């Protein structure tokens, strides 16, 4: 996978993850072009399109478009599966996820994505494992956060 974009129906970018090194200018250009192309498609159309020398796989969940770019030899259906899997993960984590969850907790959305995909390849196919890893990392974060809050809470913790 070359990159993944999340954008709203209004064309606002909500998340972007690039697995190929590109300069910011090029990234912006690609994003603008793709958002336009995908938004212009009619709702009943299939989820794939050929774009430059890449294949674009996208799917709309509520008001959000999830859009992935893959190479010619990659499997479109499994990419669709990846998108779906990611949405499920978000759903489990936030508890019936909505666009606002992703906007306000965008760093969490990235953390989940990073646990699921690494370098553009699926690293963990088990949903349970991904969520476990995230939960434990979050726990760790909370612990450290509590460490630096005033001493009396620390005492309470102990």
């Amino acid at each position, binding site marked *: 996978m070359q990159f993944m974009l999340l954008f709203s129906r209004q064309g606002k*970018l*909500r*998340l*972007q993850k*690039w*697995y190929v*090194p*590109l*300069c*910011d200018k090029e990234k*912006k250009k690609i994003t603008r072009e793709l958002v336009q192309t995908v938004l212009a498609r*009619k709702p*009943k*159309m*299939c*989820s*794939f*399109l050929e774009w430059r020398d890449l294949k674009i796989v996208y799917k709309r969940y509520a008001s959000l478009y999830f859009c992935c770019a893959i190479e*010619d*030899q990659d*499997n*479109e*259906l*499994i990419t*669709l*599966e990846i998108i779906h899997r990611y949405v499920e993960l978000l759903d489990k984590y936030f508890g019936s996820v909505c666009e606002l969850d992703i*906007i*306000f907790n*965008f*760093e969490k959305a*990235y*953390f989940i994505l*990073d*646990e699921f995909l*690494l*370098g553009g*390849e*699926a*690293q*963990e*196919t*088990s949903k349970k*494992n991904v969520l476990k*890893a995230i939960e*434990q*990392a979050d726990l*760790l*974060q909370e612990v*450290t*956060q509590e*460490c*630096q809050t005033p001493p009396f809470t620390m005492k309470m913790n102990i």
Partner: protein
Amino acid sequence: MALKIVKGSIDRMFDKNLQDLVRGIRNHKEDEAKYISTCIDEIKQELKQDNIAVKANAVCKLTYLQMLGYDVSWAAFNIVEVMSSSKFTYKRIGYLAASQCFHESTDVIMLTTNQIRKDLSSPNQYDTGVALTGLSCFVTPDLARDLANDIMTLMSHTKPYIRKKAVLIMYKVFLKYPESLRPAFPRLKEKLEDPDPGVQSAAVNVICELARRNPKNYLSLAPLFFKLMTSSTNNWVLIKIIKLFGALTPLEPRLGKKLIEPLTNLIHSTSAMSLLYECVNTVYIDVNTPPLPSLSLSLCLYLSLPPQLCVQKLRILIEDSDQNLKYLGLLAMSKILKTHPKSVQSHKDLILQCLDDKDESIRLRALDLLYGMVSKKNLMEIVKKLMLHVDKAEGTTYRDELLTKIIDICSQSNYQYITNFEWYISILVELTRLEGTRHGHLIASQMLDVAIRVKAIRGFAVAQMATLLDNAHLLTGNMQRMGICEVLYAAAWICGEFSEHLENPMQTLEAMLRPKVATLPGHIQAVYVQNAAKLFATVLKSQEGNTDSTAAQETSQLMIDRLPLFVQSANLEVQERASCILQLVKYIQKLQQKDVEVAEEVSALFAGELNPVAPKAQKKVPVPEGLDLDSWINEPPSESESEDEQPKAIFAKEEPKHSRPRREEVDEKELAKRREARKQEQANNPFYIKASPSSQKVYQEAPGVEHIPVVQIDLSVPLKVPGLPMSDQYVKLEEERRQKERAEKKKKEKKKRKEKRSGRGKKHDSGPESEEDITPAHQVDIVTEEMPEWSIITSYIFIKTKSYCVTVHVCSSRPLADSEKLPVRSHRAAEAPKSPTEDGDATSQEPKKKSSKEKREKKKDKDRDRKVRISTGLFLCLLGNHSHLILVSSGLPGINKCIQKSKLVFCFLPLTKVYDIQGNLQDGSQVVVSVIFENKCDSFLKSMEFNVLDSLNSKLQRPEGSGPHDGLTVPFQLPPGVSNEARFVFTVQSIIMPQKLKGTLTFIVKNEDSSTHEKLDFKLHFTCTSYLITTPCYSDAFAKLLESGDLKCSSVRLEGVNMPFHHLLARICFHHHFSVVERIDSCASMYSRSIQGHHVCLLVKTVSIDAKCDEPTLLGNVLDEIKQTFSQC
């Protein structure tokens, strides 16, 4: 201190966190940019504080702003600070920001190496994990090199969570730092059998990606993967493994046999569409794609899987209600079509159904498939369906796509599938009714092509085009339809060119001269005007046969009345043609009034038939020696670009080597094979052999053109073009025709069978109608191999023009001072310098004169010795310092009278090849010698043969098959007083020395009573100057050239030259093909370039010339020649 901390945390309470920022942005929809710029200012303040929590918060906000498209590269260092925090919360944010914002050119990345190394070896697995994740996004070659070892160690970490990440990131490291692949590979292989499925799947992933780039090195892993494939139930892993086998099997065909069973099982059993799709896709397609294009056999053959199985499965996909599956099914189908057209063709019904789909992308896929599915049998049917869709289609893009597809389908491989061209013409005419299409020119070119190449159809085509012209107002009715009016271009041309087929040329002529035509685009009007003239000629011819001459005069009057409209046109071409033709017609009218018959002469203006030229005609043009079409014109792209493919190089160093010789080997065998195949194809191709008279007859018997009524148009009904036959009719007609043919064939076969039965009693079933049985109704002129003689001439003309280009170039780029008296500049030049006094005024001609005189003297002596030989005495030599000119010499005393008067003029031009003109002068090794033969005697000269004794360095280019001593026949004869020009190409290897070539010209002198065989000796002198080409050079490039130090130095003094400096420069420019780079007072730098790319630089002062060149010998000779020029003035 404590106070400071407290103060910091109180401040923090008022800081915005990410949520506040997001909310703020949402609340400031109107002035978002302004709000964000204040936020960025705040963030800058926050980043200045010592508190890491504040910094992390700021970085988190920045990451969000980066996504919105704001530049945050200025905060790169702060991101590194946050990354190096010991607290996981901040570290996590830091790494996230880095992975979003950093790229290879971010310079602070090199500061992170140690921090990342520390995190990688952290006892906390989540620290390590976060570092690995971040690294995967911004790994650079330096980081990869420095950290490869650390990551490799992590591959054997105790926690599968880390192992899995380490394995995956190794792939990124391999890409950036290919040297790491070899040491890491054994460990990577180990991971294939890792107890944790996640790690295992990661290893499969990485190896599959690597193998896609270079499958050869992973063959040894096949057994392991085979085991995985049969044991694994994880579809993600299976898909990767199948992909891997798709890459491996072509290298090891034995693998195929083993794979049949598990693959077939998978295809039958799996419920996961993604896996099924992968199986089908890989098995049939991947093999054909690079890196193994030479193995065009599909995996299917190795696997001996019936393609029907896959196609059946695909059919299920296409029939599915899910648009995605439908699309992918069609996509895969179109790939299978390339290798197994037969098995796909049986699903035509399904594909046609997809044309009705709501989704445009699916319809387009289906269209692509149809292109490959047509045959002679079903073409008409498919196109009929498509025409229905054209009518229904809403969007213009889709309709245009349909239109181009229809034309593509019909015209593919030389109209191979069209059996009835009347049908095709009417399809084209129907397509012209499309509103707002952009493809008018496409339809037009098809009309032209068919009308020119299918002779039998011309009558029909002309009738159709005439109707189109008559109804032109329908096509041009509103401005939106302007695209389609291109069709009128074709219509007008066809009606004009083949006007003999017109039923009512007068009517068409009138249609072409309507005032409304003036609203058409200029290029179409021009064609109208020109073809009106052609029609006029035809009309005159038919009218002059009649006794009544008024009709013809009326026609002329019509032209004279209507043409002035075009004479006023703003378009130059229209204007020019119209005024020409108008004058012509006026003249004709005058003649007509004197009762002179003019029709013959007028139609002679447009006489002659157009002949098609083979697409391969260019092949017959010999590639000039020394021109290597495979060599790079520019430097090939450097290796640095292919750096990311370097893993390939590590394991497959041999690969690039074998590719070259192998290609050559394939070439020869392949060529023979292809030739054989082509012959076979031609034998089977009904279009190739002259159609048998019977098929033509069948066509004429069929109720054809006569039945189609050409009705007068009713102007009130503009929507359809009336009077045009519907293409549908032809479908029926064609059916009938085929049936008839079939019946005839059956009859014949019956007869045969009867005969056979009576003879041997052997049964022979005709079976269903096969492709080959359908004979076309018309024959297409397809010139594939043979080429008419004249096309060679055309190519010759091409060469000629090129050399003229050079002449023009030289002349135009170097205007001469007025005072400079030009020597004769045309090759026709040249009064023979019979006596030195004759052209004493033309100073520049002197050297030529002198040298020729000297030589003549010598020659004279020789000739006196050998008086027996009649023909000597005339010699020619060529002086380079007269640029591409000329040397003339003529007969000497005491020699045969007629030769005494004959005169030869030699003209010399360097030939620059096509790419030379484009500015690449390397490798030029050809010169063209242009010779003007002028016959000054009273006799007829013929059978002239031109021959030159080749030297080692310079060779006359002779046609293939002739020996090295054969002469070249001059392709013309010379009546008395006539001159003509011939050109001869010489191949010159080294251009650094001047050359002299001896040659002879033999010819037959024919008098009224007798003819004698004569011979002339001559010499050709190739000077070094003549190899130079005036090339402009900018002063900075010039300075660079001089600084480069590659050039050798030399100088010459000009003594006794007293002419103005600018004359001196002009003289060097003109005679020696230099161009002035820069001039400062009485000092100038000049530049020229040889046809082989040597640079020659001069620094000219009034008394001396300093020169530099990368070839000292060439320089010496050029300087000698320059000196000679000036010593003689």
